[in-house]
């Protein structure tokens, strides 16, 4: 069933009796050509693009809980492509371009809102770094604009640009950046994949891989063995846990990242703003809540909840740049588990086990990457070669010294 304005009006006039479930709830079959583990944004996007762009048949997505219940349901919804390094920027720009056409592509309202993102500059050195970053973005076909203090004052008149401690010296803006309704991304991809024949199997936990003579033959699950020609893993924070079942150790640690939403306010913040002298980023959701976050807690965790020192640190960052927001009450906060890689960049690759493929290491930047991650992983699964924009995201880059270390922190996952 295609969604359209006409359909909404028709259903409104006929008692909303014609809506059908957006996806089926099929029983797992004995064998699929491709099994994707992980029904989050990346896994569902992978299945969608496999079916749509790479004409693959007999695909299943296996999810331990319900789809969209992991990090795609618990993030700060920001999309952008303001990266510096060659290995990253073309990929994230590809992702932003896919976001721009996504709703028409999968016929679902994901509320993609290109309200712009602004990175504030507070020192001369930071200005130099952001000019360099902006030039790298433009060289890769993205948009970037260096804004003066006056231009920022015009857009955000309540910002104190003369603050003695953190004066605002300008900003790097990406006007095509913005926010997306995160749950709708999972649902849209799920519906799009399902309508093209992909089986989305929920409440089905993978308990192991069946590997014989160096080849992966399928997955053992809580609902029995499911054979597969190829298996793709896209489970974010649970990556190490899952891959350990194939006796693999990954170049990553799992960390908890907290995010926060205030009570609903009238429109106060038109775009996404990041504070350059601390780690704080904020946008206002369409319901009016201020959605903000900062650093990860910094220690290995699978708890999906963080601790109070980080809450204090994030709120201090917010108060330093937006003192007015201190009047808003916090509505809720949550923690998600991030697959923090050793250089802060992701992996989309095959493993040393034939037929077993891996997508992970997204750190706390996986949401914006969802479309390109799905597309590139589908490309790898279908063609056994990396997508041109993702060819740097290989397992062997650590051994070869080809790290994509956007922040220059070395092999210290909690600093990326």
């Amino acid at each position, binding site marked *: 069933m295609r969604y359209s304005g006409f359909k909404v009006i028709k259903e409104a006039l006929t008692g909303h009796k014609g809506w059908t479930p957006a996806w089926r709830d099929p029983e797992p079959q004995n064998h699929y050509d491709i099994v994707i583990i992980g029904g989050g944004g990346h896994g569902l996007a992978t299945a969608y693009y496999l079916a749509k762009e790479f004409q693959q048949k007999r695909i299943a997505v296996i999810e331990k809980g319900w789809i969209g219940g992991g990090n795609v349901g618990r993030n700060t919804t920001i999309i952008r492509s303001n990266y510096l390094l060659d290995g990253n920027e073309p990929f994230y720009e590809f992702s932003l371009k896919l976001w721009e056409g996504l709703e028409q592509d999968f016929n679902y309202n994901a509320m993609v809102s290109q309200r712009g993102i602004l990175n504030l500059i507070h020192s001369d050195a930071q200005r130099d770094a952001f000019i360099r970053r902006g030039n790298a973005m433009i060289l890769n076909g993205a948009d970037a604009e260096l804004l003066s203090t006056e231009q920022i004052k015009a857009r955000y008149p309540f910002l104190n640009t003369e603050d003695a401690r953190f004066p605002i010296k300008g900003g790097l803006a990406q006007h095509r950046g913005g926010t997306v309704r995160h749950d709708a991304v999972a649902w849209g991809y799920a519906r799009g994949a399902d309508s093209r024949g992909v089986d989305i199997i929920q409440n089905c936990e993978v308990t192991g891989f069946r590997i014989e003579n160096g080849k992966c033959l399928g997955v053992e699950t809580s609902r029995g063995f499911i054979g597969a020609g190829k298996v793709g893993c896209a489970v974010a924070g649970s990556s*190490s*846990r899952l891959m350990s079942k194939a006796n693999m150790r990954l*170049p990553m640690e799992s960390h908890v990242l907290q995010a926060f939403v205030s009570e609903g306010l009238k429109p106060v913040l038109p775009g996404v703003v990041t504070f350059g002298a601390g780690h704080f980023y904020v946008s206002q959701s369409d319901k009016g809540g201020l959605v903000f976050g900062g650093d990860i807690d910094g220690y*290995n965790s699978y*708890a999906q909840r963080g601790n109070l020192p980080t809450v204090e640190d994030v709120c201090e960052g917010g108060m330093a740049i937006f003192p007015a927001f201190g009047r808003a009450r916090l509505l809720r906060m949550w923690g998600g588990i991030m697959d923090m890689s050793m250089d802060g960049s992701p992996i989309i690759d095959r493993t040393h086990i034939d037929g077993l493929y891996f997508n992970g290491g997204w750190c706390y930047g996986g949401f914006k990457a969802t479309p390109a991650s799905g597309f590139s992983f589908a490309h790898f699964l279908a063609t056994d070669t990396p997508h041109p924009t993702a060819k740097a995201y290989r397992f062997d880059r650590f051994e070869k010294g080809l790290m994509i270390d956007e922040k220059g922190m070395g*092999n*210290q996952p909690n600093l990326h």
Partner: protein
Amino acid sequence: MIIEHPLLGPRDAAEFTYLGDANLIDRPDWQSETAAKDFYEYAYLRDNPAGWHQELWFHEAGDRSWLVITRNTVTHEISKVELARDVARRRGRST
């Protein structure tokens, strides 16, 4: 989280910085035939378990001691805190 420092008693985890898996104590032998591979695995690969985890914490805003903390990554419960020095010597490290 409260860390029961072996010398100082209970301290707020915010006083500490986190390094990672306590296996980082076991630096590979640089003269080994397999040194390149060993150091790659030492530097980049992690067990990253969900459950009990031995890890290195540094009391940066305190007495600047290194600790080995046994902590559950699912519940954040801490079961054991030792001076990293003691752990390293027990594993045969001289310094």
